[in-house]
């Protein structure tokens, strides 16, 4: 017979998994910061008119986006110390959490770079020509004309990326990080009530995704120009 949901087991699982929520959020936020910084750099390179800058940046992006994230995590966690012994002694790269953030950040950077490149292309060239005609310098044009416009196009798409990143953090549990997925697997095998444990874990992921989504939507609204809508 099919067992129904055991509510006691459900209640018991909540504090166990809730204690792992900061780990999941820490992975997501750490990787997002790394991913935004590296992604903007990679995106600017990929959008460069100079072919010798753009081509390598695009190839790196295709390779990172075309291979499984878990392979990238293993490559950094197990592989890096074997070819670069200094990695084993550094406090960041010797810990599973540090490696997971690095791998997730690099992975996210490749997707963020694509968003950056697309949003840069959405800025009308006529605006840039007009700014040049007014005698504005190239850095001024980038900071005051291109960046504010591109940011508003990039932000809604980035909302999808950060939710994807949150989901991806679960893979860190496979190198020993006790995040929500890791804590859930452990609790599920120890308690013999896997369904209840995973229901709670799923609810926490849905909640975290909804919070991130709401934060990005809030930012999008705050930054939107009155009377000006994109597409």
């Amino acid at each position: 017979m099919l067992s129904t949901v055991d509510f006691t087991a459900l209640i018991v699982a909540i504090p166990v998994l809730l204690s792992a929520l900061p780990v999941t959020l820490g992975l997501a936020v750490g990787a997002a910061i790394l991913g935004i910084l590296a992604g903007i750099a990679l995106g600017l390179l990929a959008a460069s008119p100079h072919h010798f800058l753009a081509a390598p940046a695009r190839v790196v992006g295709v390779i990172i986006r075309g291979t499984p994230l878990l392979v990238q995590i293993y490559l950094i966690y197990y592989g890096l110390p074997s070819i670069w012994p200094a990695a084993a002694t550094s406090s960041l790269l010797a810990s599973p959490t540090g490696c997971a953030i690095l791998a997730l950040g690099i992975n996210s950077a490749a997707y963020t770079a694509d968003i950056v490149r697309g949003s840069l292309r959405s800025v009308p060239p006529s605006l840039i020509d007009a700014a040049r005609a007014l005698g504005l310098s190239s850095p001024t044009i980038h900071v005051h004309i291109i960046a504010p416009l591109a940011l508003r196009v990039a932000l809604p798409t980035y909302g999808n990326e950060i939710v994807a990143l949150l989901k991806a953090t679960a893979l860190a549990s496979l190198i020993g990080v006790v995040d929500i997925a890791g804590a859930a697997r452990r609790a599920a095998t120890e308690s013999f009530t896997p369904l209840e444990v995973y229901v709670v874990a799923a609810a926490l992921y849905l909640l975290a995704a909804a919070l991130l989504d709401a934060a990005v939507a809030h930012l999008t609204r705050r930054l939107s120009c009155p009377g000006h809508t994109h597409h």
Partner: protein
Amino acid sequence: MTVADLTVTLPWLPSLLVGASTTFLLAVLAWIAALPLGLIIAAARLSGGVIALAARSFVVIVRALPELLLLFLVADTSGTLLAAVTPTAGTASPSLPLAAPPFAVALVTLTLIVAAQAAETIRGALLSVSTDILDGARALGSTETQTLLRVRVPAAWPIARPSLAALAQSSIKASGYVSAIGVVDLLRVAATAAGSTSSPFLFYGLAAALYLALGLIVAALFAALGRRPHRVAH
């Protein structure tokens, strides 16, 4: 790659290729199973009422949850489910819980994930079909099912095809985590090789290259599939 790298890699090459074929089989079977399932979910979403709400909840939940969590959920609850549908096996050895084979667990999980994504693509394509054509089909006496399968789906296919082909490629890439429950796929073989030689970077790098190649092969395969020019008149 140096000569030393080659001598380390060569003995593992057959196992790596077997692992790669498991990954390929898993992703392609999941993709094939996900198409009719995705169509059913998409049709349910367009039907309205409680069925539409259930279909929408399924898509939203599956797409919002980490793939690994879904895999764990299916892996750890499938024993209970199996015992429920085969009562004799459960009573024969009550101390030993039934466990579904890892490949089956991985296939079910991957199918659900791909189907949820395919359903969104298919729904978008179905919605883009002109309602005039559908009204025309109904006026000619077609039932709703006939209108869907003989008019709406064929008209929607060219629109959905590129995204569905891309989905096949991404399911190759996404399948890496199934090694966590013991499926001997490409990543699992690479991990074994990495553990028993002293060249983990080499083998994970090789696995990455093979995944990239598999993804490109699948993309090329499905890009060619079902390209029937001028078959559907708009």
